[in-house]
């Protein structure tokens, strides 16, 4: 790389920057422009320090939806197809081309030649078939669950070394997009044949991606090294060949202040999860903020109909009308967090604007509760037959400012005479109570995926089942949606589901949750997959 000559300059710049920080001087806004001017031609080499908010959990690929997991696995694995984050079109990657039959029950993929996993074994039709057999059907013996992005899977068929065919029992139009999601990362045959507990461990994940694991300190740090012989980036990628960076240090840094401080002081290059209140600090210091949309089911409160209070649809509707999502966003968040106008993000496929149905109307809410027989008691909390209108919810660790959000909603509900019982996230009881609709009446969550099936992932009893649904009609609608081969018909069905969910008041959508990243001005080529997980393949440092 460069000689030693520029060093004094850099050092003095660093000192200047540090002095600047200490004396809190302004005028930092010019820095990005300077960075862009100095960008020029990409350079190879260097180490990127990436600070992650939470430690990765189980790294079994279909469990990669959790952002800390996805941030690691997106660098280690490739997928059959690539979803262009701008157009959301599916483009070739490991599969150079594919054919889908009329009713979307048979998919044939033609694979790129010469792709290998990092353990040297070939990524061929055999390996792909082994991967999707597990993702599509699970493996009870190895305790591997079915992946939520594959529906109606029947079997795979290896046509020849580089051709694989998948058969479905019913139409599965979401499958093509399903092959591009983070959870569909391809791993070696050895990895996929391991039992669940072992696939969970990072050291056993062998992919074909641009980086490999060099070192791991569990729950603290993961070091990734570039794979020198990598040469199978998606065709449409501007950059080909090996990754620019030599190394990535992923360091788990849960404290928000520390992440932002490390970024602005130059100790880190790239951080995930810049909180809303820190965005301005990061921008003022001359760093870039990327608020990437997640195009899925919005951040919101999901009401569980199996709860003895919430089984009454009037109570659910009252809570929906009595929640002021705009006030939540205005108070706690920034324009990076658009107010929800439906169950789905406005960038999701099949989105329909339901802002009128979701309008804040405390008067109507109070009336509904009166009708349902809930009368205000002496302490201002409504009661019925000696039972207080009190609902439990857990603070949700992955959701930004979940506690503050719940407190603010609780404040709005208190005016209606409803008590929201907010429980801290790290209590030992959470694991037990979260699946109990009586104790946890409400779930605060979201899910990102750029396909119509995202709504099924969220609500179907066999997928995430956030509301612990006991509504057979909802399940039926979701299954119908996932089996409609025609795009327009699928979107119409997704719209119908959104209307149904809002009408039944299973959901109180709050805002469209982005993933917010802070990036140093000398980091270029920042890219994300379709639901905001970073890709470091084309990143380089000047």
């Amino acid at each position, binding site marked *: 790389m460069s000689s030693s000559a520029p060093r004094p300059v850099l050092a003095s710049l660093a000192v200047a920057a540090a002095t600047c920080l200490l004396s809190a001087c302004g005028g930092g806004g010019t820095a990005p422009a300077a960075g862009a001017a100095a960008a020029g031609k990409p350079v190879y080499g260097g180490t990127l320090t990436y600070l992650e908010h939470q430690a990765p959990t189980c790294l079994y690929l279909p469990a990669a939806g959790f952002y800390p997991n996805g941030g690691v696995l997106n660098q280690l694995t490739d997928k059959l197809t690539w979803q262009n984050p701008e157009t959301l079109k599916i483009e070739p990657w490991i599969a150079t081309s594919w054919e889908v039959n009329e009713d979307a029950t048979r998919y044939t993929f033609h694979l790129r030649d010469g792709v290998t996993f990092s353990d040297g074994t070939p990524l061929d039709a055999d390996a792909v078939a082994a991967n999707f057999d597990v993702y599509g059907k699970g493996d009870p013996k190895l305790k591997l669950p079915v992946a939520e992005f594959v529906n109606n899977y029947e079997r795979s068929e290896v046509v020849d070394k580089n051709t694989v065919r998948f058969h479905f029992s019913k139409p599965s139009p979401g499958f093509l997009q399903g092959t591009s999601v983070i959870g569909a990362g391809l791993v070696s045959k050895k990895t996929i044949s391991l039992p669940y507990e072992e696939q969970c461990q990072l050291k056993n994940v062998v992919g074909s991606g641009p980086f490999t694991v060099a070192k791991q300190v569990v729950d603290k740090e993961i070091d990734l090294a570039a794979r020198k012989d990598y040469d199978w980036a998606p065709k449409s990628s501007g950059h080909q060949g090996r990754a620019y960076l030599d190394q990535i240090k992923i360091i788990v840094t849960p404290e*928000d*202040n520390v992440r*932002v*401080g490390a970024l602005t002081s130059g100790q880190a290059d790239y951080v995930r999860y810049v*909180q809303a*209140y*820190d965005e*301005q*600090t990061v921008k003022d210091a001359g760093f870039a903020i990327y608020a990437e949309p997640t195009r899925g089911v919005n951040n919101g409160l999901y009401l569980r109909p199996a709860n003895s209070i919430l089984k009454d649809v009037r109570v659910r509707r009252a809570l929906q009308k009595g929640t002021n999502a705009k*006030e939540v966003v*205005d*108070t*706690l968040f920034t324009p990076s967090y658009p107010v929800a106008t439906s169950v789905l993000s406005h960038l999701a496929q099949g989105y329909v604007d339901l802002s009128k149905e979701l309008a804040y109307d405390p008067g109507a809410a109070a009336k509904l509760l009166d009708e349902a027989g809930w009368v205000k008691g002496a302490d201002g909390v409504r009661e019925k037959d000696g039972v207080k209108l009190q609902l439990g919810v857990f*603070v949700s660790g992955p959701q930004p*400012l979940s*506690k*503050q959000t*719940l*407190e*603010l909603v*609780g*404040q709005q509900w*208190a*005016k209606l005479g409803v008590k929201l*019982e*907010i*429980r*801290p*996230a*790290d*209590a*030992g*009881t959470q694991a037990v109570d979260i699946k109990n609709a009586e104790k946890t009446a409400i779930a605060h969550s979201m899910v990102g995926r750029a396909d119509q099936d995202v709504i099924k992932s969220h609500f179907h009893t066999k997928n995430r089942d956030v509301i612990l649904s006991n509504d057979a009609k909802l399940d039926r609608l979701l299954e119908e949606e996932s089996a409609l081969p025609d795009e327009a018909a699928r979107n119409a069905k997704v719209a119908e589901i959104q209307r149904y969910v809002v009408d039944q008041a299973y959901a109180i959508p709050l805002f469209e949750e982005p993933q917010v990243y802070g990036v140093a001005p000398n980091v270029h080529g920042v890219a994300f997959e379709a639901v905001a997980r970073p890709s470091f393949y084309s990143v380089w440092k000047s």
Partner: protein
Amino acid sequence: MRPGLILSWALIVLVALWALVPGVFTGYDPIAGIPAEKLRAPGPGHLFGTDAVGRDLFARVVHGAVNSLSGAFVAVAVGLVLGTLLGLVAGSVRGALDEIVMRVVDVLLSVPGLLLALTVIILLGPGTVNVAVAVGVGSVASFARLARSEVVRVRRTDYVEAAFGSGGRFAAVLWRHVLPNSLVPVVALAALQFGVAILAISTLGFLGYGAEPPTPEWGLLISEGRNYLATAWWLTTLPGTVVVAVVLAASRISRSIGREDG
């Protein structure tokens, strides 16, 4: 009395009044804020400023006093009663029982207090009362050891021997002669422990084991504010200052107990 001591007592009385009649000190609601007035710096309208949801921080500190102080009282009471009882029995019965109790106390003393409290919390589950009990259990050992050493001394005195000699029953002598004369250092420790308990309860609140949000509690207030340290310093600094002041005052009062010059 020295000025430092007067100040300490004044502070403790003030904080006790916060706990008893919070409405006198602040007109704001500690739970329901005005979202439009979020993150206001300390000023005439809001003495301690407001938090991210627009709640008055001073109101939250004042209303939080009852949770933190009553917790500390329960904790000290648990430690004082159980510890003194164990020490009294061990110190006056002596023999094998004394050995067993004191070895158990040794083991308890070797475990860090916070760790012990966390262990108890995991068994009992989170909550204000449970946190207080957990902190109290953690202090039983020190009370027991102190009480025993005093009891052993008093037990040997002539008037206790005389009481036994004149036909006093064991329990009655313990109650009328041994206990009252061993208590002064124990009470001093209780005052000190009061400060320690506030700190321990705040620590557990900070870790999320105490009161349920949005209930104000001092440790929780400090914890909630720490993410805003760069943008809204008052959220952590002011409740933190209150806790420090109360703990220092309790320790100053403890030092004065049993000392002629205060």
